[in-house]
């Protein structure tokens, strides 16, 4: 298995692929089935944000290693309109589309590490990590 998996996100069909690939990596890392579900759900939310707000982007998933931990790094990247107010976007229940507004704050809750960089007109990059327990 390669250490990096890249899924081009253009449509709702790619969401399903991204979720499946996330699960495969989780299995390779020996994550529990509960952790697999959390990670795959987060990937689904990130991929949906790309389709909904930017139309196109990519999800890159790779193995993360540090001195005493193994885990998964997921980067969701697009060149869409960007998020004008990140603080607001991270609030539970806030959404500018038809969503529940739960995608980003939910992801932050279920992952070990969450980072978002967005520039208006340039795009958004969300990086999340999940370490193996």
């Amino acid at each position, binding site marked *: 298995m390669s250490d990096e998996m890249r899924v081009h996100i253009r449509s709702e069909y790619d969401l399903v692929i991204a979720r499946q690939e996330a699960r495969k990596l989780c299995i390779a890392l020996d994550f529990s089935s509960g952790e697999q579900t959390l990670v795959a*759900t987060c990937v689904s*939310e990130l991929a949906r944000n790309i389709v909904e707000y930017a139309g196109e982007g990519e999800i890159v998933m790779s193995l993360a290693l540090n001195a005493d931990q193994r885990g998964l790094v997921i980067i969701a990247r697009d060149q869409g309109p960007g998020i004008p107010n990140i603080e607001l976007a991270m609030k539970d229940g806030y959404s500018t589309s038809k969503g529940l507004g*739960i*995608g980003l704050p*939910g992801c932050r*809750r279920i992952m070990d590490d969450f980072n978002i960089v967005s520039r208006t007109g340039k795009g958004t990059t969300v990086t999340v990590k999940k370490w193996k327990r």
Partner: protein
Amino acid sequence: MSIPILKQGPYLIASIQSAPTDSEWREMAKVLAERVGKLRSRGVVVDVTVLDLIDSFAARTLREIAQIVKLRGAEPVIVGIQPDVAFSMVQLGLTLGDVPTELDLEAGLATLSAIIKGGESNV
């Protein structure tokens, strides 16, 4: 691939076979709304046993389907949410509102029959 919808007596059973795409979810809502009228169904079971995750879109769509079914005069019930899925929904803060849920198809059908019988005796 669309989601098969089976008729069993006065009930409809939407039996999800694999992770639906967004458009398959929407299609299911539309077909159920139509078929409840055409077959004069009294209840609808949405069986999500095979789903290995329910994200915010799926949760919202399940809620909407339940609402649509109710507005069409039938009773909705969602069955088969797996333990890991339930766990992750709670962690994410996803809820199905007041949509009735049951362990499996059998329990779902029993609940529908109880709701419908209960409603009739009150008339």
